[in-house]
């Protein structure tokens, strides 16, 4: 998400360093958006007996967001008010608006695999800590994957392909994205029951 911003930053400054700086800012914003969503859920997973309810609830939430994005195809207007220099903020808000953090919740909850633990004998605090660790790990893995993919595209555009390819490689993925949210939600529910 946001890789054209990295291309633009590099072109404006005529420096490869600007491309890297922009990618880092975008990654930081994205990572914060992930953790902002995942951490509260990681604390809730301490409520072991509600574990299944939580996973179904999270699944439903993601499905609902997917349907909302399918029906409401408008872009959030508040993103248009972010200053072009505030890349991390932009990345954070864009990830929030698209539900990128929320999408990870069902996957994350599945990873916690609480049912395999002898939860009754675990101090809730310790469980929470380990779950928070997992949350951060999920966010890091996701952000790294996104940054690598986006970085490759940005670098390809900047070093070799040129801007002519910007409009050629830009596809409307709004529907695909919304459908994938629904899919992930369904998967979350399926794995919980």
């Amino acid at each position, binding site marked *: 998400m*946001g890789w054209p911003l990295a291309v*633009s930053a590099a072109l404006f400054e005529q420096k490869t360093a600007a491309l890297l700086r922009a990618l880092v800012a975008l990654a930081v914003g994205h990572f914060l958006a992930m953790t902002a969503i995942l951490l509260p859920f990681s604390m809730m997973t301490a409520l072991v007996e509600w574990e299944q309810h939580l996973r179904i609830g999270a699944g439903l939430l993601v499905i609902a967001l997917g349907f909302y994005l399918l029906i409401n195809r408008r872009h959030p207007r508040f993103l248009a008010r972010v200053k*072009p220099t505030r890349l991390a903020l932009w990345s954070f808000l864009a990830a929030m608006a698209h539900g990128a953090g929320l999408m990870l919740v069902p996957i994350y909850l599945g990873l916690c695999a609480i049912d395999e633990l002898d939860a009754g004998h675990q101090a809730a605090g310790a469980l929470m800590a380990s779950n928070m660790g997992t949350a951060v790990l999920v966010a890091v893995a996701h952000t790294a994957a996104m940054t690598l993919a986006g970085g490759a595209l940005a670098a390809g555009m900047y070093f070799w392909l040129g801007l002519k390819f910007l409009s050629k490689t830009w596809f409307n993925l709004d529907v695909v994205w919304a459908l994938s949210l629904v899919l992930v939600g369904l998967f979350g529910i399926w794995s919980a029951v």
Partner: protein
Amino acid sequence: MNLRPDPTFHPTAQLAMQAPVENYAFTVMLSPDGEQSDGIAVVDVNPKSDSYGQIVHKVIVPHKGDEFHHFGWNACSSSLSPLTGHAFLERRYLIVPGIRSSRIYIIDVKDPLKAKIHKTIEPEEVFAKTGYSRPHTIHCGPEGIYVSTLGGGGEDGTDGPPGIFIMDCETFEIIGRYEMDRGEQDKHYDFWWNLPQDYMVSSEWGLPPQFEGGIVAEDLLSNKYGHKIHFWDLRARKNIQTIDLGENHQMALEIRPAHDPAKAYGFCGVVVDTTNLQGSIFTWWRDDDGKWQARKTITIDPRPEDADNLPELLKGFGAVPPLVTDIDLSLDDKYLYVACWGLGEMHQYDVSDPMNPVLAGKVEVGGIARGAAHPNGKPFAYGPQMVEISRDGKRVYWTNSLYSTWDDQFYPDDEGGQMVMANNDENGFHLDKDFYVDFPEGLRSHQIRLEGGDCSTDSFCYPNV
């Protein structure tokens, strides 16, 4: 919504110059006395076509007295902004405001030969949602479609300052006012911006009582028309600096920023200097400290003329003022075209060095007390006015009417609407003998838009490489 970006959206001005050339032009037709309805003429500009240089379709609106003037697209290359990423819009609708009625028509030109009205926004809605009136310049930008207005509220548009409002770029709903802090801005005309650098520049004509019934000579001689340009923090919607060009520089109209967004300069045309009747161009730029500056870089002298040959308004001066009423900058930021509506001349300046423009070419057609004919022998009423350059910079189109009541004051004996074209090629800048559009009886012409975008429409989000 498309699956791919509209092929007429280009990341850079350079790429836009290489894109396929225009086949159609859309030109405003206006009835000066409201006897007929206004409309948009679709003109064939493909030299290989049998109907080259002819009006091949007309969209005539149902109301009368709208007075069309400027208009613009629902979407342009600004949709490729990496920040707002609205790349899947279509460049399909023309937003056409009536500056007298405040009514706005949305015209669907997907198939230019079957162009039709898609939606009409009634004046009451404009007044109620914005408190502004007399909508004018259209630009598509980060928050939707931005529309500048010439009037505030109330019957004569003087209840509160005019400003800019924003429309949704898909539903065409009016969202509301743009400004959060307008500073000392109290008049309005044109505006444009640099999207990545996040600034906007706006200019001033005058308030509705100063133009609707004709130019008010007393106001002009007492320097009461606009003479300031305003710099805005675009996304914060805040006026950050106002530059007074000097009160004798009456009517600071068109704002033309460099198309390459890596540059932080542009131009503004001033109609008349009341101390010497000169027309002028100011170059504005941002200095190393981040402050905006402006300096006069082009002056055009008036031409002495026998009072007997002059209209009532000018008899006392014994001269024809150039009247710089429109300017346009080619996409490579190389040539600035300056319409001298009074003299009857279109000037071409090389502005490769924006601080030291050089006159590179000149075409004479029409003009006060001169009335130079077109090279094909036909008359050209009034003088060269709204000018539009093809994306590749090789063809320069223009029309002849300034504004209904003003035409009648400066050219009391003229009538008619014409659109002509000049080539900019190895033979220099010269009128094309074969392109001459005569508008239907009783209708005049004003702004031109070219199919797929032109040099006063698209805002580019990536620097040239």
